[in-house]
């Protein structure tokens, strides 16, 4: 894990906040879960559809007796809770075996958004099938464009990302992320790499913070 992309989330507490939560600009526990819900709307987050008292503390909720957050910044407990949530959602999106028509429609819609550049021309009925067989594009330019699309889906435009001041060179970041999830010269199905890229991007401070 020597990759620069992996120094994602966590801990560079921004000196501003919109709500209690960890010191700095991290989202409140409610907003963290809502932000995920907004992306995966209609998909179950399993255990991440509500906040247990332990999760609250891990996610920086305030200690009601002191009015201070339980932790100054996201730590190991946060990583555990958050990773579980991301796994729940991404699993329920890509691997769910539930065949209810509403859920299939929701999954189709979200997968189409996420994998749009790879699924052009695929009809709705075929999206969930196609997602498992579509290959990573062979050309580096196409791969990079795809990664750029994923970054935009999760974090927004480069301008939005840079306004957080965390990532100074989105181009370089894209390259690093691309090599990490789609190793050069390896031909593979796109789905798992896509899921990995989402897991990494959804842990970025740009997703976890207000501004």
């Amino acid at each position, binding site marked *: *894990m020597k990759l620069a992309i992996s*120094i994602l*989330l*966590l*801990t*560079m*507490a*921004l*000196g*501003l*906040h*919109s*709500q*209690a939560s960890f010191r*700095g*600009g991290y*989202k*409140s526990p*409610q*907003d963290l*879960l*809502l*932000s995920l*819900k*907004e992306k995966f*709307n*209609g998909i*179950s987050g399993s255990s991440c*559809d*509500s*906040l247990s008292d332990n999760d*609250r503390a891990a996610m920086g*909720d*305030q*200690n*009601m*007796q*002191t*009015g201070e957050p339980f932790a*100054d*910044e996201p*730590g*190991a407990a946060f*990583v555990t809770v958050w990773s579980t949530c991301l796994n729940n959602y991404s699993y329920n999106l890509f691997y769910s075996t539930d065949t209810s028509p*509403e859920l299939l429609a*929701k999954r189709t819609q979200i997968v189409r*958004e996420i994998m749009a550049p790879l699924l052009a021309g695929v009809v709705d009925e075929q999206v969930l099938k196609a997602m498992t067989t579509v290959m990573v594009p062979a050309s580096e330019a196409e791969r990079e464009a795809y990664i750029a699309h994923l970054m935009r*889906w999760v*974090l*927004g*435009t480069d*301008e*939005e990302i*840079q*306004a*957080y*001041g965390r990532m100074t060179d989105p181009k370089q970041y894209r390259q690093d992320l691309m090599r990490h999830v789609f190793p050069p010269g390896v031909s593979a199905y796109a789905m798992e790499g896509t899921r990995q890229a989402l897991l990494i991007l959804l842990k970025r401070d740009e*997703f976890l913070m*207000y*501004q």
Partner: protein
Amino acid sequence: MKPLLMVGWALSFGLIFQAKAETIGDFAKLNRLSQVIRGHGPTQGERAELETALRLGNGARFLETKTDQYLASDQHAFKMRVRLEELFRLKTAARLLGREGGSPSLFESEYHEKNALTYLFTEMGRQNRSWDDLLIAKDYRLFPSERFAVIQGIGVNDYGFMAALIPDLKSLSGTYSSELSNETHRDVRFSGNDPRVAGAITTSRFMTRFVTTGLNKNRKRAAEVFRVFLCDSMSAAIPSTEGKDDQIFDLMLPHDQSMTENEIRTMAQQSDSLHGSRPDCNACHFKLDPMGRTFLTSPFALSAQASPGALSFKRGQQIVKVPVKGIGELGAAITQQPEYVSCQVDHFWSWFMGSRHKLSDARRAQLSAEFDRVGRRTNDFIKILLKQPEFFELGRLMSEAEIRAQHVKTFLKKCQDCHKDQYNSNSDDGSFPDFTKWPIGGSADEMARWTRKISRAMDLAHDGESPVMPPRTAPWRTSLREVNLLKSWIADGAPDETGRRTVAP
């Protein structure tokens, strides 16, 4: 993952960011507006709309329209509610409702969804209500929630709580009446000058969160009112033990976990005779006790009888004392104090700007005037804040020294919260210097003297083993982490935000 985390932690002390006077672009503006008002980023569709608007040269107008839409959204009303719950130290919402489709669903809290206070909090943003309503509103939506009524047998629901004022609620002695359970809620309104009711304060949820006892004499409630509405934290009161929920905890732990029943009784007797005579007690209690008296007749349920008391506090060297006929008048009296206005401006500032931008006295005064100009209306004032130049500024990385200084000051603020009200027998005029204003005491020599005193008072030489500060009577203790923070800071010469030593090491 392990080494990674450590890198993260190492970085956390190095990189934080801070304002640089450079404005962000339109996409970043949309993102920031959405994040801060709604709690999540813009949708793909909204980005596309912005693209179109920019092409047509309508970017600014588009952002303005979006701001209005966001402020009218459920998410905003919900966020304001959670902000208020945090401010009041109430348990925040917990359960995400599984509403499918449409906008992302909101949370529902476990116990408190259906009660007058949560409802009022949500209405602040939804109806753009005047912020003063938290203290002076006379209209309520009451809920007969059974769940809330039965928590540990000590809660009362809204119906029981208001029954003495509205006889046909038919509740017995302030507890839930099952006869009324077929009604989902009831809207009630009291006359504009009713001295018995005061917005958020006279609600069941507030009163059961901050319970009173024969010994406590409503001081806890008074302390909350001072903290929330006048930004005067009297640090004494709150045990720093890991908090469990709400009322039960506070009932079990009056002041000090280790006290026996007997000690508490003795202390109660002593303290009543001590109050007003010992200057160190009176420093806080001349504020708490007269305000506490307005709650006297309403230990659990709200009384039909208003109880007189007073708003009393210090403004500079002058004592302000406003006698009031009851809680209702107390709330109104508070809204008339300039301290209230600047305190609320501070809350809004930290919610929408964060601690990144310090609010100068001049800016605070200017924004206080704006707060009044818009009738103190919640969303109207938020819109003013969103138009301040700081809101759209680009960040810059903050230095390690700045972060460290911020941490030290956060800790020393807890000492200050008590000292500001105390008499210091070691000084000529009885005052303390503010430990969060550096150099402490105003000069390098004084700073050196005070860091030595602090070091001794906290027994830093022995890792805080037998400290005299905070005093035993204070209910909180310094954590080992805080001891280490202060110890290394002083050992390094008490560096300020620029990293410059204020004291020779």
